[in-house]
């Protein structure tokens, strides 16, 4: 069960994997995630489903080797190996309807999870303007795939080594200030990027949705560990989300909650993996 059918290094520390999980592949809708346990005593980690193929019974995940378990998954597991547990698809699917023009933004690793969303939005008749951003050219992946799923695609790199120089927020500002009518914005990426998008679009009054990646344990609504304040109410990201109205998110609280196990995690990584941290990959 849960056999790794493919494994590919997309960029330094960024890995794509195919996993055999027929029930999940069949039920998956854009915006949903799954929980992975590498081994019997591993933690359960949430990973967004980047693609699914019901015919092959296969789901695709793309992850960054950044924590104890993702480093282990990336370094110790190869094609043909099996994972102890994969549960999903979890979370409420992304709301998809004919909105008009939707700008979908993916920052760094966030490029993977927006792929099924772009596909879904396009199939629903939207004009999908995709903005994807990477730190450098050599960290790019899936930009062709995204172009195929979108009406228009803009690529940014922080250092200008490919596409437009700057951040995804700069590109968004350019389109908006150019007078383009935007009906909805969806942004997925590192929390700092999602907050930056939220701050930028709030004065514009354009509905903006983000996909939160809080710490989770079960991913099924049982523990409340993933909770975060949304519009003055506590919400469970794994069941009420992961998509939320960006302008209602209590970002300060969410940033604080993401750091709860930093000390424990760092100790564990150092003990297990002699510091293979690909810290340079975490976009800002």
């Amino acid at each position, binding site marked *: 069960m849960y056999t790794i059918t493919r494994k590919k290094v997309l960029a330094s520390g960024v890995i794509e994997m195919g996993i055999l999980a027929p*029930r*999940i592949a069949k*039920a998956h809708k854009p915006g949903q995630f799954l929980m992975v*346990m*590498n*081994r019997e*005593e*591993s*933690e*359960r980690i949430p990973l967004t489903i980047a693609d699914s193929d019901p015919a092959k019974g296969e789901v695709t995940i793309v992850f960054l080797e950044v924590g*104890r*378990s993702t480093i282990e998954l990336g370094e110790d597991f190869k094609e043909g190996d099996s994972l*102890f*547990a*994969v*549960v*999903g*698809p*979890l979370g409420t699917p992304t709301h998809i309807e004919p909105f008009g023009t939707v700008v979908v933004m993916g920052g760094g690793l966030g490029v993977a999870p927006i792929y099924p969303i772009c596909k879904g939005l396009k199939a629903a008749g939207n004009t999908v303007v995709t903005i994807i951003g990477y730190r450098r050219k050599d960290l790019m992946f899936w930009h062709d795939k995204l172009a195929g799923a979108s009406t228009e695609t803009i690529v940014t790199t922080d250092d200008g080594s490919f596409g437009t120089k700057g951040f995804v927020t700069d590109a968004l500002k350019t389109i908006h200030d150019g007078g383009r009518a935007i009906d909805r914005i969806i942004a997925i990426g590192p929390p700092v990027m999602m907050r930056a998008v939220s701050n930028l679009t709030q004065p514009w009054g354009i509905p903006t949705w983000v996909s939160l990646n809080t710490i989770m*344990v*079960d991913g*099924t*609504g*049982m*523990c*409340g*560990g993933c*909770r*975060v*304040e949304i519009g003055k109410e*506590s919400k469970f990201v794994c*069941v009420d989300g992961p998509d939320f109205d960006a302008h209602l998110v209590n970002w*300060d*609280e969410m940033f*604080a*909650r993401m*750091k*709860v*196990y930093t000390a*424990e*995690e760092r100790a*564990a990584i150092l003990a297990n993996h002699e510091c293979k941290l690909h810290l340079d990959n975490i976009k800002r």
Partner: protein
Amino acid sequence: MSETIDIAALNGVKEGEKKRPRSKEKRLEIACQTVEARVRNYDEVALGYGPAEAVAESMRCLECPKPRCVVACPVHIDIPTFIGLISRGKFSQAAEDIRQYNNLPSVCGRVCPQENLCEAACIVNDTNPKNPIAIGRLERFASDWQLTHDVRDAASVHKRPATGFKIAVIGSGPAGLSCSADLAKMGHSVDLFEALHKPGGVLMYGIPEFRLPKAIVQKEIEYVKALGVTMECNVVVGRTLPVKEVLDSYDAVFVASGAGFPNMMNIPGENLNGVYSANEFLTRVNLMKAWKNDSAGTPIRKPRKAVVVGAGFTAFDVVRIALRLGAEEASIVYRRSREEMPGRGEEIEHSLEEGAKFVLLTNPVKYLGDENGFVRGVVVQKMDLGEPDSSGRRRPVPIKGSEYEIECDLVVVAIGQTPNVLIPSNLPGLATRWGSVIKVNRESYMTTVPKVFAGGDAITGAATVILATRAGREAARSMDAYVRDPARTWNPPA
């Protein structure tokens, strides 16, 4: 496998010999790990009877012709009969006798609140106060004996010809396990779906190792598998598998999804780091084994000063874990008094022995955080007891101006759980009370949706293992009648 041991050597009775009860003697205490040792490990605290002790304790039973204990037992285990079998050295047979009434005897022997049930009713209390027969310990002994000596044999005894009916069970807690076991014994084909990566429900994720060893739970589960039940983990019905698909593929469905949604108080500061729901804290420690520092991948915060809010089963489990994680101080903060505590007597005692502090008639009003968003204290308020409320317990009333601060770096909110809405919200027509507790006909366990039965915490809200076990068993009987009924008559709740 041989199960008869030398009873003469154990000072018991031989086959055919008349037993001389020793009810006047004190009940035989169970060996426990010393307090000093057990607060440094997660091994079981109560060590259990050995054969000699079990036989000696069993000799105290009067084997009453009209036993009050049986009436008080929610599943009416034939207590005098199984205790009699123990006194004759027929341990596995005693366990098999219990299994006619209860599918999880090794679990129930450990976690049932016997002091309020069978042992409270035992007639020996009348002449030898506070010394009822140790029914729970004897149940545990007999069942553990069977599970370690001959599981498969015992399970194969129950095989019945296949009926050809297919039944799905959702959730593998005590309700789901008990229902599956009985349905399998009746010859139905049973598929059990569990959302988590291990079956067992609260028995695995909630109740800690030192009270209910996971190896015992797994043995009970092996027994259910040996009866022919197919178990599939990592299936969240309503997500992984649409509810409709389950309905279409089976003759009947039993929903035993428990009460897994943690209640919070919605007071300021509850989202600070270091404030946990009991479910999260327990899941990290028990299911994910965060107590095993070195090997487990799941972290937990090690407290210096822990505050646990609530006084049910859950709160006592949490406070004892906090002490084992090295807390210098761990307090139960409870808004009522000692008398109203709903927890199990033995656990309250054990917590006190292990150093837990009780801060009674006190309720949190807000949590205080440091500059990094970690909890550093809780502001509490003193309470008075007023008139009895609907539960019959006196209602706590806040005392104005009595607020003060308790320093802490870990808070666990253990004020109860309610059922999860995932299944109700994915099953049109399924009626609930308070939005999540599934309504059933109390006789037939039928819900408002034909084919769908429900039981356990999912229909009551958080209750007990034995009530969930009973619901599973009674529902199995009703489901058996339903699938065999050509008209498939449906009696939904009013």
